[in-house]
């Protein structure tokens, strides 16, 4: 008996694969310093769930992270600007 694919969680995503989607970036047009620095090379975090990041406020760096059934508010101005920069490309 097969599962119902269209309503299925992405449970089959490879462990460690992090899908980060930035949506609804208010104020994204604001000047963002050029920063092409790569992601941390020493990432020891494993994650087998999809993560969605929503930059709530570019100025303060407030980011909403959605994972599983949780919503986490994370404040990181540098990360917020990186996401905005990536989304503006």
């Amino acid at each position: 008996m097969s599962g119902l694919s269209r309503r299925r969680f992405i449970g089959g995503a490879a462990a460690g694969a992090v899908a980060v989607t930035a949506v609804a970036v208010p104020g994204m047009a604001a000047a963002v310093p050029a920063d092409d620095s790569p992601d941390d090379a020493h990432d020891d975090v494993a994650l087998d769930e999809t993560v969605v990041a929503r930059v709530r406020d570019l100025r303060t760096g407030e980011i909403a992270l959605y994972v599983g059934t949780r919503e986490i508010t994370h404040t990181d101005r540098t990360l917020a600007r990186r996401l905005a920069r990536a989304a503006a490309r």
Partner: protein
Amino acid sequence: MSSHREAPEISKDPVADSTDVYAFVSPDQPDTVTLIANYIPLQGPAGGPNFYEFGDDVLYEVHIDNDGDAKPDVTYQFRFTTRIRNQRTFLYNTGPIDSLDDADWNRRQTYSVTKLLAGQSPKVLASRLPCPPCNVGPRSSPNYVDLANMAIRTLPTGEKVFAGQRAEGFYVDLGSIFDLGALRPFQNLHLLPLPPAPGVNATAQLNVHTIALQVPITDLTKNGRRPTDPADPKATIGVYTSASRQKVLVREVDDDTGIGPFVQVSRLGNPLFNEVIVPMGRKDGWNASRPADDANFVGFVQRPELAALLPVLYPGVFPNLTAINADRADLVAILLTGIPAGLIPGFQNFTGTRHADLLRLNVAIPPSSSPSVFGLLGGDLAGFPNGRRVFDDVVAIELRAIAGATYPLVNPSFTPDAAAAIVDDGLSPDDLGTPYLQTFPYLGTPFSGFDVPAAS
């Protein structure tokens, strides 16, 4: 309608659209309360090959408040899982479905039931409980009553549950009511008159999806007891249902992913509250808010739009209603606080001064041996607005209440207009086209797609 397609956003999301809530002391099991939450409105029985089903991505809940703060003290959660047996056919079934594990049934749902008590960790009561199929027709579901009965399960913790398709139990003349408030039996008196005519039931021969739960009264009351005195302040529970979806949806070609916390998209306590009390611009917000915050909507109950419209639509028929120039404390009591002791002999379902749209049931009042579809207005203390039974004529009851029939409860000097005692849409349970059941889950056998619509 009671709450079918009652708000702009939820009308686009029928799987999460709550249509009716019922709560009553079970007539055949009076030490229990039956709680029913219906979803997926206006199902044409022939709607295949993708017949109706609950949403795997929806969190369905039935909430009970038992201490008057309008916050859930007991919640039952229902989550559904759909499985396809054969991906290579377009058919719902490839032969007669004779059992709930029949190999010919290609697309089936199971569900889990989780109980939450305030301040405690959730407890999964059961999982992989089967839903029955939809009633397709005599070839596909030849013994439908037996199939549906197989899906009634008693949990180890004592609750009886059922989740699946049922015949619609709510009756209303939508076509007339939403044509500028016309009531066919009285439409000769309408501002734009037509000859009087019998009501036409817009929900006749349609189905819904039902979540039904029969629970020992002692599981629901504040003190864990079964009250016998209707005056007992702990005898009344407040009930509502809600449906929630995850905050983020990521659509892919072959997979949709729900992510984040569940947020409420639909709720329902008293019938018709969001439908005819809450104005268009606030309906979606009401669906997303909690009963505990219903103070935000009390003004619409105190001065209901419909009470002002009736005298305009029916000139000269409601002079006494027109003369009321005060907040409708009777409607606030019926819909938002419960009716305090002292207004109706032998009755109260007051839960305190907090305004909240909850279906309030005094569980100390036993089932009626001669029920009236008009509930309290018909002198039947076991009927709406003391909870709600499947057959209660909530359209007539609320229409008459808004027309002024209940205003003497708070203003004994008021004389209702003669029309307030008789106004309705001209319908009765006979207009449904199928009987209710006398036992759990009480709503009738769903109409089959083969039979409805009928050959002309």
